């Protein structure tokens, strides 16, 4: 039973949260040309590392906000909690982000490509989440 420091409500019991799995998976748009296998990397493949893991959590029973957590899956130590659409600040968490195999996937690269659809979004300043994933 972890204590998770909700960035808004403060430290709360794990039972108040829902885990949303691996963080920083950018969603490719339908019009991006990626094949089924590449799409499956986005849709189905998830990391399950022993050690530091960047994951998404939601404070379900509290403020209902999503945020990211850098947690060691062995010691259960939470080294950082940071907002959606941002990258971690701690060096080792940033390294974990950069070292992920996912950074090189076609799906991830396709998600970064500006397209007709998200050009509009870009105007409204929504690029952070797209580039850094959800």
């Amino acid at each position, binding site marked *: 039973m972890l204590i998770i420091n909700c960035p808004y*409500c*403060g430290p*709360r*019991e794990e*039972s*108040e949260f829902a885990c949303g799995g691996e963080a920083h998976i950018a969603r490719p748009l339908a019009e991006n040309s990626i094949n089924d296998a590449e799409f499956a990397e986005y849709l189905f493949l998830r990391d399950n590392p022993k050690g530091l893991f960047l994951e998404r959590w939601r404070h379900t*029973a509290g*403020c*209902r*906000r999503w945020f990211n957590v850098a947690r060691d899956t062995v010691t259960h130590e939470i080294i950082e909690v940071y907002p959606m659409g941002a990258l971690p600040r701690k060096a080792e968490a940033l390294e974990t982000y950069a070292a992920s195999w996912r950074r090189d996937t076609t799906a991830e690269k396709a998600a970064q490509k500006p397209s007709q659809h998200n050009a509009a979004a870009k105007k409204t300043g929504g690029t952070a989440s797209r580039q850094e994933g959800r």
Partner: protein
Amino acid sequence: MADIMTGDAMLTGRNALAGRAGMSTAAPDGGSAGLLIKEVAHIGKINIRGTKAFAKVIWNHTGCEFPPANNMVSSAGARHIVWLGPDEALLLCEAGMERDLRRKISDDLAGQHFAATNVTDALCVLQVEGPDVRAVLAKGCALDLHPKKFVPGQCAQTMLAHAGVTMIATDENCFLLICRTSFAAYTLDWLQDAALEFGFVFQG
């Protein structure tokens, strides 16, 4: 927040726990009951979504600071703004004022990224009071309810047993519990059960 119950304004229709008869059990030591439960039936509720950019407009209409500090309630007279999240709050007002108040705020903020929604009928407010109130709540709530850790004016959205509640300390021995009306009967059942060892009174 002591005056949250004052005001004579009534809401028409039927309150959430209208079907529930009053009930009480004696305190085992023969003294007065450790917990008093009642429904605060006549109070307006408006859910507010928006950021501090709208602080002035909301202050104009409520006199309350917006947004309140995280996990706190800001109050002015009979109006209270309960912090729910980084861009969400619950405005409590005099019964019957909620429609006008919502419209006035919304009109002043028309076209902005802001939402005010009347949730007066969606939520049930229970007041629980008495020397054993914190011990009762601790049976279902994982928050630290020590009087120095959860002080009057503080609020939290959390779980009370299996019901999601917004919990507000209005006094050292007095809390408001705000739940969805569909959970009101369960919440009342749970409170009555948890208060068994102290004795309780529910004013139906």
